[in-house]
């Protein structure tokens, strides 16, 4: 019984993390039809910015509670400093090209950013654990849990709710929905998609960086953290249904729960459980669980 509770709780925490890390990917795919490999770079950069900024912050002895403001700031900075130039300076030249070409373009961007990150931060690990430890622990069924981890559940839920509200209840969100549904038609009706693309890409980049910034306090940030996240995030959003926020949430939940369960019950399977889940889901539902309705094109 305790095991079940623990699995559910561990699964929830991991699912929340997965959702935060993956949701930007699904958003960008939904609107721009780009499978963005550089998402891993945003994650890594968010983590690096957070780790070094938090390190600086605590070294200066500034009020500790306010440090959490650095997290969204780091996301904002990465989105604007890296995401914006990447979209305006590179990706827009490839719009309309094949999806695979865009995968490779973003893959190339990822490789370049990987070495650029190394030039700035070197190869040594960075860590800034204070934000993680500051919140203390909470005992669940006799098992201590880091409050920071539990907060991730709230952050993921809140993020999901805000995105859902933004997409379904605001004017700009509905416009975005129209573009997701049928780009050509939206353009025909006079929607100027260029700023929408840019804004979405920057938003997606910020979300990726947010994932990294939120993770930074509980890991040590090293070269290669980005690469690990990409395929994982892909698997999550594909399982859920590419381009759907609700799908990303569901995909994260399923993958997170499955992983927590095998870690407790059959640890060595953890290595590929994510892909197993993806393969099974795709075999049963070829478009993933929550494919957004696409306009009929035939």
């Amino acid at each position: 019984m305790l095991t079940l509770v623990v699995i559910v709780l561990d699964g929830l925490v991991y699912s929340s993390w997965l959702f935060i890390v993956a949701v930007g990917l699904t958003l960008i795919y939904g609107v721009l039809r780009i499978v963005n490999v550089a998402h891993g770079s945003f994650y890594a950069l968010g983590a690096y910015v957070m780790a070094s900024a938090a390190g600086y912050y605590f070294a200066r002895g500034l009020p500790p509670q306010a440090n959490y403001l650095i997290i969204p700031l780091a996301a904002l900075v990465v989105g604007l400093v890296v995401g914006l130039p990447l979209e305006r300076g590179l990706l827009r030249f490839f719009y309309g090209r094949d999806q695979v070409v865009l995968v490779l373009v973003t893959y190339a961007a990822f490789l370049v950013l990987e070495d650029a990150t190394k030039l700035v931060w070197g190869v040594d690990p960075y860590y800034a654990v204070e934000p993680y430890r500051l919140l203390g622990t909470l005992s669940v069924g006799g098992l201590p849990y880091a409050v920071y981890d539990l907060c991730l559940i709230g952050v993921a839920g809140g993020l999901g709710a805000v995105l859902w509200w933004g997409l379904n209840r605001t004017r700009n969100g509905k416009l975005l929905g129209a573009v997701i549904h049928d780009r050509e038609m939206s353009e025909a009706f006079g929607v100027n998609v260029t700023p929408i693309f840019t804004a979405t890409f920057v938003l997606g980049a910020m979300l990726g960086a947010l994932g990294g910034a939120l993770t930074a306090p509980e890991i040590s940030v090293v070269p290669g953290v980005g690469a690990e996240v990409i395929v994982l995030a892909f698997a999550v959003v594909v399982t859920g249904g590419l381009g759907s926020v609700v799908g990303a949430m569901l995909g994260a939940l399923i993958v997170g729960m499955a992983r927590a369960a095998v870690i407790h019950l059959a640890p060595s399977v953890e290595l590929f459980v994510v892909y197993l889940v993806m393969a099974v889901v795709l075999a049963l539902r070829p478009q993933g669980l929550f494919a957004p309705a696409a306009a009929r094109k035939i």
Partner: protein
Amino acid sequence: MAAAALRRDFTPVILTAALVLLLAGSAVVPAYLRFLFELALANGLAVMGLMLLMRAGLVSFGQGLYYCLGGYTAGIAGSFLGISDVFALLALGAAVAAVVGLLCGLLIARYREIFFAMLTLAFTMVLYGLLINNERLGSTDGFNVPAPHFLGWAPEGERLGLTLFVVTCVLVYVVALGLHRYLGSAMGYLGEAIRENELRVEYLGASVRRLLLVKYVLAAVLAGLGGVLTGLAVGHVDPDLANWTTSGEFLFMALLGGIENVAAPLLGALVLELVRSYALEYAPYLWQMTLGATMLVIILFLPGGLWSLARMRKGADLTPEL
């Protein structure tokens, strides 16, 4: 009129010339370069398979699955079953790839676009995970593949390297010729037809699913052969052969070379090997950036791959005159 529409086909000439050049060159160039070419040719086999799929509009992120199966088949047969004949290993590797390709293909032939890509990715990553969990097969470290025999002949050292190179060249040559014929056959053309308009193909009375299945299995066999040759050349196999990065590299090679002609993937594989070897040599701290930048330049300025250089020289329109 019909005669005018039939043009001379130069590809066999190019391939033969390349074969002669490679074989002659192998006597002259240093062994490390020959080895680089050998790896490129072995990878080129897998990329040729990828080309088949890409011409039919399907992009696989999972050719590493069959590449790895080929390599492991050669390794297991050599290390555990005592089968060391190069031709037996090639046949075995191809057979294993074909069987697994058929089984996966039955499911996967229904999928298109990103879902096809992701399912192929999932399959290859599952194999990757299974191999890492298998300590008997050396887990992540993999294991060494014993030196092969050639119909009872067991050369060593330099002579072994040279023989393996010749076998690789001739095999790739034969496969490339066959594939070239295939691309010019009805089934080859139907690949593009499927890419352009699946519905029309069905309404002509052909089964898209069956055609794609054949192509998928063919691609699997080619990747399997490539894996066998790589395993023998390197003398070592490890699960990284099935990692998604390997499949991604094949894709990069296909894009680099182009998919217009069977020789283009080989060119792509070769150039990537050279660029990487170069980048590692001259920019050991920035080789990823070099690779990424090369990739961007190619995609931006040569969307058809290096092979399209030939077309640009001639001018855009190559439509045969009638």
